[in-house]
């Protein structure tokens, strides 16, 4: 359960989040859409403390992560994040990428982590790549490893920051497929995306952001076929051909 109230974030003089209120239920799949610069990625990055915020509160399962006394690392163990540019560790093979955090943080023994890595690689369809270096993988494969790496921590929440934006078109499908399966298993997911098809098909709720505000939120069917706000209509007209 994520609960955001009155969230404001500035970069210098530029206010990118101008007062965001948002809550995400357990097991919910929430997609955030909107034009570039609308603040959607920044909002996502605030949710696991990658950005310091200027005002407001963010509660993750009841704990206020803006509280300085709280150990943010503990909170992050419970929140997986997948980045646009994958960010795999290039000096480690696929298996080590996946096992690094759970072993270093003492969650799993090396042997158990290895076993878990193999399971996760099977889940993302890359069982044969355990010993491969990331540079030898395609973008789609790298992103699937990145998802497996995040899942290795057994998080309750997964954040996706435009996970398919850096991919060649023919590789988008394989990544979305893995995300769909995760959603089906009941993972709580917040997905910043330009994939309107995915948002429509998989999400429980869609948020449209523009200029630092949440302009409109609704179930996907309503938001896509019957947008209320002019800005939402304009945006959807541009992206949906």
């Amino acid at each position: 359960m994520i609960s955001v109230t009155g969230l404001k974030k500035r970069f210098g003089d530029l206010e990118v989040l101008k007062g965001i209120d948002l809550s995400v239920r357990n097991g919910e799949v929430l997609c955030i859409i909107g034009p570039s610069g609308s603040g959607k990625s920044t909002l996502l990055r605030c949710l696991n403390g990658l950005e310091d915020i200027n005002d407001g509160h963010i509660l993750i399962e009841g704990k206020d992560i803006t509280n300085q006394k709280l150990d943010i690392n503990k909170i992050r163990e419970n929140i997986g994040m997948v980045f646009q540019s994958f960010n795999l560790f290039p000096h480690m093979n696929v298996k080590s990428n996946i096992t690094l955090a759970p072993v270093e943080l003492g969650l799993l023994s090396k042997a158990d982590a290895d076993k878990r890595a193999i399971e996760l690689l099977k889940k993302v369809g890359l069982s044969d790549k355990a010993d491969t270096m990331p540079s030898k993988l395609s973008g789609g494969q790298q992103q699937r490893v990145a998802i497996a790496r995040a899942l290795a921590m057994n998080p309750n929440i997964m954040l996706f920051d435009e996970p398919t934006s850096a991919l060649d078109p023919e590789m988008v499908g394989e990544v979305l497929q893995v995300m769909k399966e995760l959603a089906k298993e009941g993972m709580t997911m917040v997905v910043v995306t330009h994939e309107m098809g995915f948002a429509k098909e998989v999400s429980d709720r869609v948020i449209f952001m523009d200029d630092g505000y949440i302009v409109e939120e609704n179930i996907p069917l309503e938001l896509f076929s019957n947008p209320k706000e002019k800005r939402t209509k304009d945006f959807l007209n541009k992206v949906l051909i």
Partner: protein
Amino acid sequence: MTFIEILTNSFPVLMQGLRMTLIISISSILFAMVIGLVVSLMRLSGVKVLDLISKTYVDIIRGTPLIIQAFFLYFGVPDLLNIRIDNLTAGIIIMSLNAGAYMSEVFRGGILSVPYGQTEAARSLGLSNAKTMRKVIIPQAVKNMVPAFVNQMIISLKDTSLLSVIGLGELTQRGQIVVAATYNSFEIYFIIGVMYFILIKFISLLGDYVERKLKI
């Protein structure tokens, strides 16, 4: 005297000098690595005081000639404090402090060359700042900084020749003594040059080897 005679006569003394050059170079490069790593991490820590201290240190070392630093530490400081410091200790301290400042910039450059996304990925998995540095950033940084690191090793090795001004019996100083006694300046300085060259060529080759090894 033929060249061969000059070579055989001066060789034992020059080898003594070479030994001293190696002792100073190796020990000060090792110290400099530790200093450099600590100072670069201080600069990247985001803590203002630590940043200021390390910046000042690097500025002072970079802003003054090595030979002045040597005079200052070997003559100036002992005069002021009324102590004696032997020239080998002084030499190693100077070279370590000097190379340490440059090394810190090599390390800092190496660390900054690793994309910020790597830090974000590691931190978002719940790894602490220290673990992120140790497991993710520094291993990648090392690879990127090998060329600059080797460069600094070579510069430091050559700079030890300046320590002859505090009477340290390294290769250059030994050579000067032999020249003073024999007047064979052409031959002796030629031999010394070749000895430095071979040593440095060896370091370059070692650097190439390490670079190849670290390539994925």
